[in-house]
């Protein structure tokens, strides 16, 4: 394996894990999913086209593998192993922690299609086009899912005003940009 390829794969691991945890809702399962993804990717490394986005390629493999192997187990995983919110240990005590917990719980309640679209565009930094390629659907479908995810999150968190929020140009720009 080419050293540059190895570095590119390794460099994508932190983000792959974050995506996997958002899909699985459980860190241990997510790490197994990442490991299986890496093994599949390396076994098929010849089908990776140099110069294209390694991260997007790996995300696609991970998502497809999750869909075929893990998704049907999701319900039991959520019930028995605890969810994302409980599995993260590093979140420090902070102002707004209650709201942050509410956010994670609300995210876990989203339909998986909407959650993955929101994560890919809003957190992983993929463009709508890249997210559409990863999910194997139309760009308009991704946009629609992201919009519905945002609306549903706000509903679940009972956000119906902006009084509590200090406007922040930078984060506003990040989200409004939507990964474009």
């Amino acid at each position, binding site marked *: 394996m080419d050293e540059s390829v190895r570095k590119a794969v390794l460099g994508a691991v*932190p983000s792959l894990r974050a995506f996997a945890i958002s899909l699985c809702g459980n860190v241990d399962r997510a790490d197994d999913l990442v490991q299986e993804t890496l093994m599949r990717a390396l076994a098929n490394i010849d089908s990776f086209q140099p110069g294209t986005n390694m991260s997007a390629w790996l995300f696609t493999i991970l998502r497809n593998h999750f869909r075929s192997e893990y998704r049907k187990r999701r319900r039991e995983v959520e019930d028995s192993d605890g969810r994302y919110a409980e599995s993260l240990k590093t979140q420090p005590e902070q102002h707004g922690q209650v709201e*942050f917990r509410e*956010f994670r719980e609300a995210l876990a309640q989203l339909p998986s299609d909407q959650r993955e679209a929101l*994560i890919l565009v809003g957190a992983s930094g993929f463009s709508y086009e890249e997210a559409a390629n990863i999910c194997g659907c139309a760009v308009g479908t991704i946009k629609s899912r992201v919009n519905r995810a945002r609306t549903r999150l706000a509903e679940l968190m009972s956000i*119906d005003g902006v009084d509590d929020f200090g406007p922040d140009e930078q*984060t506003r720009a990040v989200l409004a940009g939507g990964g474009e």
Partner: protein
Amino acid sequence: METAETRNRKTSDKPAKLSREVQARLGQQLRSMYDDVVNQGVPDRFADLLNRINGDANKGEK
């Protein structure tokens, strides 16, 4: 502060268009959660896995 107007909007069937402030706040929460994992870096098991596979592949080529 909750007013009759905001209550009505919340219970409306038609999804309300979110303000940019709300979108920004949700995006901030999302990134914070995601980056919490990203900042953990590469766990040893994955670095080891790649090194092991790399070693095996090189052996196979010789």
